[in-house]
């Protein structure tokens, strides 16, 4: 079995579905000959032709709007936004249209599109290239928001997203595009979109995260073993709709929870998980739920980004605090 990194897994999933379903069309800036600035679509235009893998003019509102229009006619567009920093021009199309088309027409028209975008910091990218705004999309009814954290999950979740009958915002943590290789079976199997993935069993504390931060989170869990702390690690994977049950079950076992994300803290998606723990799991909580997150500052330019990004130490400190609480 081939070992793939995350971006190669994305490429494989796209290739699989282009071959399997002629309704699938890829569009975006530089996705053709260039194969995408991160090489997600490399080789695909050559293999499937310019009709199937289409370079667009430099216009994100257009990309999203075209995807909505194509999807309304039964195609399955997979649109790439080059960096999340340029996704904001699509919010109008996503919020007012993509997420609503089925509802507005009582199911007459649907919007089976995927909007892919790399997101997050840590690769010393230029200004506006390193932000994490998943919470913005997770607030919009009618969407799915999916974030993989490993090559295998990128492959399976992306396939499932393309096949999903409704619009999916698929955010790729670019810091780990090439960080790890993993065996990925290129058999076209999708992964379920409505569930969290428990990556590690534990009994003292539940660590909840998604995307690139899972790697620091898993490292923290590893190191905590030395302190005699057994941490369960959950990859949320699909933020919307959220599988809260898996998190609640875990916390009812561990009694403690630390949520880790890279995005700014205030009104980040960690708040939603904490709020639901408070609503549904208060009695099992033995300590406050801590959030280890990016600061409520503008994402700094790269000289300081390491100070912005939550680190393993911060996670460990937070875990110790909740374990020692009370």
């Amino acid at each position: 079995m081939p070992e793939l990194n995350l971006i190669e897994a994305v490429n494989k999933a796209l290739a699989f579905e282009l071959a399997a379903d002629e309704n699938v069309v890829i569009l975006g800036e530089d996705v053709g000959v260039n194969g995408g600035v991160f090489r997600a679509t490399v080789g695909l235009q050559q293999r499937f032709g310019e009709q199937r893998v289409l370079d667009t003019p430099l216009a994100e509102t257009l990309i999203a709007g075209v995807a909505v229009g194509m999807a309304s006619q039964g195609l399955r567009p997979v649109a790439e936004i080059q960096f999340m920093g340029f996704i904001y021009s699509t919010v109008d199309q996503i919020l007012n249209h993509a997420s609503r088309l089925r509802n507005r027409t009582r199911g007459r028209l649907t919007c089976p599109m995927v909007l892919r975008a790399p997101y997050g910091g840590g690769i010393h990218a230029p200004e506006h290239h390193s932000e994490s705004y998943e919470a913005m999309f997770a607030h919009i009814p009618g969407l799915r928001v999916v974030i993989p954290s490993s090559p295998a999950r990128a492959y399976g979740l992306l396939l499932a997203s393309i096949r999903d009958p409704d619009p999916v915002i698929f955010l790729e943590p670019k810091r780990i595009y090439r960080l790890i290789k993993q065996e990925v079976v290129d058999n076209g199997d999708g992964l379920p979109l409505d569930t969290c993935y428990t990556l590690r069993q534990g009994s003292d504390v539940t660590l909840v995260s998604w995307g690139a931060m899972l790697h620091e989170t898993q490292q923290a869990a590893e190191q905590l073993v030395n302190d005699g702390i057994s941490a369960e690690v959950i990859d949320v994977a699909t933020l919307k709709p959220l599988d809260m049950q898996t998190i609640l079950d875990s916390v009812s076992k561990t009694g403690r929870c630390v949520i880790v994300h890279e995005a700014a803290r205030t009104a980040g998606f960690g708040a939603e998980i904490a709020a639901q723990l408070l609503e549904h799991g208060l009695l099992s909580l033995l300590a406050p739920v801590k959030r280890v997150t990016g600061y409520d500052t503008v994402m700094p330019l790269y000289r300081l980004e390491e100070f912005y990004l939550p680190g393993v130490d911060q996670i460990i400190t937070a875990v110790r605090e909740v374990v020692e609480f009370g």
Partner: protein
Amino acid sequence: MSGPQRNSNNARESITSFDIHFTRYIDNDGKVVGALPDIAKDPDALIPLYRAMVLNRAFDTKAIALQRTGKLGTYASSLGQEAVFIAVGAVMKKQDVLVPYYRECGAQFLRGVTMTELLLYWAGDERGMDYAGPREDLPICVPIASQIPQAAGVALAMKYRREPRVAVTMFGDGATSKGDFYEAANAAGVWNLPLVFVVINNQWAISVPLREQTRCETLAQKAIAAGFPGEQVDGNDVIAVFDRFSAAMEKARTGGGPTLIEAITYRLSDHTTADDATRYRSDEELRTHWEREPIKRLRQYLITTGYWDQQRDEQLQQKCELEVEQATQAYLDTPPPEPESMFDYLYANLPGALQPQRDDLAKKVKQACQS
């Protein structure tokens, strides 16, 4: 590219030029201007257009009356702009797709959207967008110009499938200030899409007059920025719209790419029933434009040519009003929507996470019924 590749002996010279044309066949008084196209000489083709325009206006009158009596929400009237809507609806084929804005009910009726559906829509009921007729037409679009990139997507889907179909999108003069319009037009040019843009230049965007919307002499010239032809028609002359729009449709259908048609017309009504146009425009301007309105003009032409007479006109009026009454009754008789339906078309299958919310709503509904 012109530019460095060129070799010339003039430091500054013209390298390309553009023309904008205007077309009108029937003037404000119904008199003929220039050589008429076939449709103008064919009562069997022309009279249905007239009928549709009269029906459009009858619907409009009724919708405003319903709103005034609390039986309908905010409604955007077509008054004075019927010629464009009807010509577009009449020329489009069944397999084409309309990507509308919100003012062209006349075009939608000809595509098979029912008056009852549109009344439901304006009465705040999503079922009014589940058109039984044109299943692939997009629903009414309120966020200005946001339907235009979608129309490019619809046209791209047609092109991708190599179908002889055309997408048509309509929008107002105000919409030509939104980036969405330009982005879509530019893409339609690059991709040579089977897409026709119809601008309803009714001179106003709520209270903003055209001269504050753009400094352009014509809106047709906006197509020049997208690299395909744009032209103006007298939008109150149904024959001119029919003729030029037919040509654009034929061109698009046969691989010739997009066209932008600017239809010069006038919004004789308030912007919507929520607006009061007397705040910002003069009675005099309004009066002038009543003299140019499309139905009177066409009737004049039809009567002059002998294709039509007063008696048939009165019969038609009655027939239209009756049809509108029936549709209104059907609308009023429609049972209210189920509150829980707000959950049922959100996703193909309701995610488990939402079931408790749906249950909560059901409880709320039950309580509301009891009290």
